[in-house]
């Protein structure tokens, strides 16, 4: 062979072992933060280490985390969906309307998920079909979807959800494990496998890093993105079912401002907001951290806005720390 003369060198698969990579990862940092917060909370309040209290605390983040999983994939693919909270409102409104028509729990669930899917499809079509930037499109649909709820509901509320519907937001699967928390764990596993262990997940990363090259490499970019927006829609629908069931009523202002909390959760979980990298374990840890922070501060009766300052600082410092650390190391080594 003509090229044999070029004496090919063998390239090792990896330079670092598995444990070295894990230790240096973002997740390792998050585990440290989460442990610190857990210890801090246990010391600060005698009520923290109580299984039932902890179980109650999970409701602070489970619904947002469901959406955050799907959002993580969307953000890794280089897009964003700011309309999720409005989808919750619209899906909840549709379910409330169905209750007025006398429909029962299975139908309500189907409607909640269905509206989520339809909203996701609208976003997906506008973004992949017309090639519009997702941040702007979803700012638009954010107003549109919630606006529709306002048109339907105005100053009214839908109540009177059937007894059996209450289970999704208030029921327990086993001991202190609520349905919502169980769903959260299940979805974490499903999304973790989907993103990290399947061809679909690889395509999501490829699109996030270089959409054009991914297209040339045979990745069906539009189809994958459309699926991602369907997924956030579906997850928002699911969250809407849980939240509506937990509240037992629907107002158009339901879940107001959640989109930014979901995005914060995803970014805190180490997903690059510019796309291309991030992991589901990171998002799970971020959800736990945010849940523990709000609950811990709540036990101390610290106003919510102080918690959000803390989350804001955490967000910036958790991202800034590795950068500063790397710089310091580089300076030392020189």
């Amino acid at each position, binding site marked *: *062979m*003509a*090229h044999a*003369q*070029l*004496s*090919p*060198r*063998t*390239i*090792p*698969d*990896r*330079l670092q072992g598995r444990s070295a990579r894990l230790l240096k990862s973002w997740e390792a940092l998050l585990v440290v933060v989460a442990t610190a917060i857990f210890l801090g909370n246990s010391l600060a309040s005698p009520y923290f280490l109580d299984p039932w209290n902890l179980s109650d605390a999970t409701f602070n983040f489970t619904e947002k985390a469901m959406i955050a999983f799907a959002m993580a994939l969307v953000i890794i693919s280089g897009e964003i969906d700011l309309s999720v909270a409005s989808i919750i409102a619209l899906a909840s409104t549709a379910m409330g309307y169905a209750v007025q028509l006398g429909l029962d729990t299975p139908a309500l669930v189907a409607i909640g998920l269905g509206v989520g899917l339809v909203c996701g499809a609208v976003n997906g079509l506008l973004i992949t079909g017309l090639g519009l930037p997702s941040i702007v499109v979803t700012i638009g649909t954010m107003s549109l979807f919630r606006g529709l709820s306002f048109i339907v509901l105005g100053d009214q509320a839908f109540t009177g959800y059937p007894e059996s519907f209450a289970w999704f937001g208030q029921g327990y699967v086993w001991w202190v494990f609520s349905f919502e928390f169980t769903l959260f764990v299940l979805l974490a596993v499903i999304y973790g496998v989907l993103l990290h*262990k*399947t*061809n*679909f*997940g*690889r395509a999501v*990363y*490829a699109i*996030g*890093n*270089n959409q*054009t*090259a*991914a*297209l*040339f*490499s*045979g*990745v*069906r970019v539009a189809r994958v993105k459309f699926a991602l927006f369907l997924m956030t829609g579906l997850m928002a629908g699911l969250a809407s079912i849980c939240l509506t069931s937990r509240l037992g009523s629907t107002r158009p202002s339901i879940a107001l401002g959640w989109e930014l909390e979901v995005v914060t959760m995803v970014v805190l979980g180490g997903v690059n907001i510019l796309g*291309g*990298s991030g992991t589901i374990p990171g998002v799970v840890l971020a959800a736990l951290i945010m849940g523990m922070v709000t609950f811990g501060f709540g036990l101390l009766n610290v106003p919510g806005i102080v918690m959000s300052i803390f989350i804001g600082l955490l967000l910036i410092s958790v991202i800034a720390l590795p950068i500063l650390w790397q710089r310091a190391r580089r300076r030392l080594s*020189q």
Partner: protein
Amino acid sequence: MKPAIALEGISKSFPGVRALSEVSLTLYPGSVTALIGENGAGKSTLVKILTGIYQPDSGVIRVGETETAFPTALSAARAGVTAIHQETVLFDELSVAENIFLGHAPRNRFGLIDWKKLNADAAALLNRAGADFDPTIRLRDLGIARKHLVAIARALSVDARVVIMDEPTAALSHKEIHELYALIERLKADGKAILFISHKFDEIFRIADRYTVFRDGTMVGEGVIADVRQDDLVRMMVGRSVDSVYPKKEVGIGEPVLTVSGYRHPTEFEDINFELRRGEILGFYGLVGAGRSEFMQSLIGITRPSAGAIRLDGEVLVIRSPAEAIRAGIVYVPEERGRQGAIIGMPIFQNVTLPSLSHTSRTGFLRLANEFALAREYTSRLDLRAASLDQDVGTLSGGNQQKVVIAKWLATKPKVIILDEPTKGIDIGSKAAVHAFMSELAAQGLSVIMVSSEIPEIMGMSDRVIVMREGRIAGRFERSELTAEKLVRAAAGIEAQPEGRAA
């Protein structure tokens, strides 16, 4: 002669890579120094140090007699160092004139930008660079070659004593290359020191006065061009001699594999008909902008043709997306490596396996061991230089990135492979490897379409050549009847023969 600028003992490391170690380079007024070296030898890195984009880890820069440092691109420009970089670094949304003067625009007496003077000065500079278009149009309305001319005009806008050109001719057509040569002559006459980086030896021997050779980040030789032969330079570059850059194998050409008939597109191309046979390397020659890439991309479903049909192994195919093309066995190695080829931010092995995931995975679930095996096989066949397979592709040099991209497509085991400018920006050693590989593939029964704007490559490698001009086929030639002159004439339309009768 006093040097215009001198670098001494410059070292530069990136995480995991020592790009330059203790290199020196001296440039003299009124002389052209060629900087040559394999891909990844550190040429562009040196350019970036010279223009203040990177800071060296150690070493000194001397302008005239004084030691200086270039902490920013602006400080280098102030010291009279200007460059045309390997990538076009311009602004699509701004006007041509503004692209030329951004950062040092003429101001009026209130300190505000003087648009009138700016446009007038820009027109004058464009003229000097051999371009004659309106400087007030937006850059994005220009073709790729004209953009390069703007980059050249920008370099001229600084009153420079040192002009650096990093592969300036890669995107230029025949005519424009000659205008560039003329420009270099004029700059020389003005007493500028010129650093010229190129992988094309004909070019180097034509315009350079001196040479400096880099290998693996060190300087391995310098001297006067008149004193060396090409073989010596090649040996210095790669550390051994390369017997043949065009190791074309004689292969028995088989039956038609791919038949394209009546392909047309409203604005890009029309009347494209040809056959590709088993084991054949079909060259597509044309000037830059002839529409070859556009047509090739329509074969894999990126652009939609308005009419036409293709048959693969006798079966009519409709291809609507690259995914379908890959499944059918037609793959396209794109021309724009950074944008369409490499997925920067992902590891080498994931780049290689992306189009082959359906083979390495099981029911949609990834299998890393298979992926590494596939990536190892193809990267080692192409002699990739990398620290490990999970290294980010973005940290490789341009040439090595190209190898990853080619490996990616070969790993799909295609029937037809379309290579669009496969050796653009590749050093001579790697070029030989790519060509050898291409021959090898053809010998194994693969059919190859090779789009190239380099006549030696076309002549050296093709069994048959199709020449395109302005979206149409302008000539067809068998290997036996190939001459450089025929190719150039057909491509430039000097022989205004309607196609069909020409072949």
